[in-house]
């Protein structure tokens, strides 16, 4: 990897760890509304993408996401930021059509060549899922940010929402947790290059394939795990109507993240998520990896609610297609004491 640009050294927090906390956000946008007959998914749920009805066959999916650098290599940062931005379309079950770059470029610390590499990295990922980049906008910024506004299409009858899981379904997660911890460690130069490469390759993996596989099975809800951490996004999925029961031992966590968490290399975002969710979570037995469930993920995996009957087949299919970290991690139960439970 080309780490000379030291992208992560000039930002306060890495990737989605830099995101505004869920509590702050709800307070800020809670009063906004966007009801219209053509809006199929808007701001009233916590979905990250919106869906606009066009005709019986097509609905427009729109989403936008930007992140600060999580790795020092500009090309790889571009790939990861793109994978992160495209992910919301895939979580909805859509296909990407076009994307526009959004760049806050830190011209004080970086030469123009870095910008070129970032954009090339982004383009490689848009091409990988069959989309095209049709423009963008760049401003000078004190801290580097990059991402995309993405437009895609989905069949109006086949939209995957994040808050409609059925009781009895199980949850499959397609990427391991710990990315906020690991990117914080990258920023501090604490990881060996081989680990950085492993983490970068997970972050740059598109959720496109996972989304296409998911559509072949009986899936009732889907979201991608990003800044609010596994439990934050699971809470949105529960919609306070069901209890999601996690089996700690089945949750994929990168070993390297465990070791760093033990050392106390945990971004503040994880603690923000935890304090926001503390009243929603019941722990059968306290677990030392608990904080990792709140770790803010950049370009995290898809979290899918699937019928128990289809779950083994879907899981096998994901693994066969190279998504080897995929695992069944939870079950949807009738609402109990709290909407989230881990044991």
């Amino acid at each position, binding site marked *: 990897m080309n780490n000379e640009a030291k992208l992560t050294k000039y930002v306060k*927090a890495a990737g989605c760890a830099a995101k505004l906390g869920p509590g702050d956000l709800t307070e800020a946008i809670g009063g906004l509304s966007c009801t219209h007959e053509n809006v199929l998914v808007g701001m009233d749920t916590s979905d990250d993408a919106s869906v606009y009805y066009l005709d019986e066959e097509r609905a427009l999916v729109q989403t936008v996401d930007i992140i600060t650098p999580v790795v020092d290599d500009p090309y790889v940062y571009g790939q990861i930021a793109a994978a992160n931005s495209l992910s919301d379309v895939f979580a909805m079950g859509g296909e990407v059509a076009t994307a526009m770059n959004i760049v806050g470029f830190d011209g004080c610390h970086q030469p123009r060549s870095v910008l070129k590499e970032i954009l090339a990295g982004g383009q490689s990922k848009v091409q990988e899922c069959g989309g095209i980049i049709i423009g963008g906008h760049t401003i000078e910024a004190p801290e580097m940010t990059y991402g995309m506004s993405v437009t895609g299409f989905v069949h109006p009858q086949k939209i995957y929402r994040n808050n409609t899981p059925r009781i009895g379904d199980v949850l499959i997660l397609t990427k391991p947790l710990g990315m906020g911890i690991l990117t*914080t460690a990258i920023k*501090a130069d604490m990881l060996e290059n081989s680990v950085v490469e492993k983490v970068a390759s997970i972050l740059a993996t598109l959720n496109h394939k996972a989304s296409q596989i998911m559509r072949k099975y009986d899936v009732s809800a889907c979201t991608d795990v990003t800044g609010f951490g596994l439990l934050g996004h699971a809470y949105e999925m529960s919609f306070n109507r069901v209890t999601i029961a996690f089996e700690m031992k089945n949750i994929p966590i990168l070993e390297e993240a465990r070791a760093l968490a*033990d050392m*106390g*290399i*945990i971004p*503040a975002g*994880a603690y*923000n998520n935890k304090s926001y969710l503390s009243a929603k979570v019941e722990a059968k037995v306290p677990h030392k990896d608990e904080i990792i469930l709140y770790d803010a993920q950049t370009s995290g995996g898809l979290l899918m609610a699937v019928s128990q009957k289809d779950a083994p087949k879907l899981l096998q299919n994901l693994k066969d297609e190279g998504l080897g970290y995929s695992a069944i991690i939870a079950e949807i139960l009738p609402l109990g004491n709290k909407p989230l439970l881990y044991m």
Partner: protein
Amino acid sequence: MKIDCSGLACPEPVLQTKKALETLPNDSVLEVVVNSMASKENVMRFAQNGGFDVRAQDLDEGKTLITIVKGFTCKTVVDAKDEPFLDKTLFLKSDKVGEGELGAKLIVGFLKSTLELPKLPHRIVCVNQAVLLTTADESAPIMEVLKALEAKGVEIYSCGVCLEFFGVTDKLKVGKIGNAFGTIEMLFGGEGTISL
């Protein structure tokens, strides 16, 4: 030692705490001031998982004082680079540094100062007249120093042949009796030898 990590973003407070603990000798206390919940949790997590004794006390203005005791129990923390010892052997051939009365004083002073190092030599090997140090009277000033070194984990060996030569084998008060093969291994196997 006290460090102020107020206003620093993760992972800086943990890294500064780690660095400070590495430089401190055993049996010392490190105080870390932080002013965010994340920093407090992270520093305490680091210290607890490292096996240190740790306490937190909330101060005014959202600050927290974390007190970490670096004692003997903290051996679990350490990977190779946090080892409290230098991979060095101190090779003593005489009970003096140089000649005469001054030489006798100097060796006590030298070893006493060694005690203050953040990292101690792993081993001390005594041959020839140096075995008179490990077999000195209980009241001799050198005895206190050698025992303190041993208590900190420094391995002290006295040459068996030399002890016998001087007829003091039964007077050995600190460390173990070494043999020629072990001595050679220590001199050539480690990173370095310092001879006085």
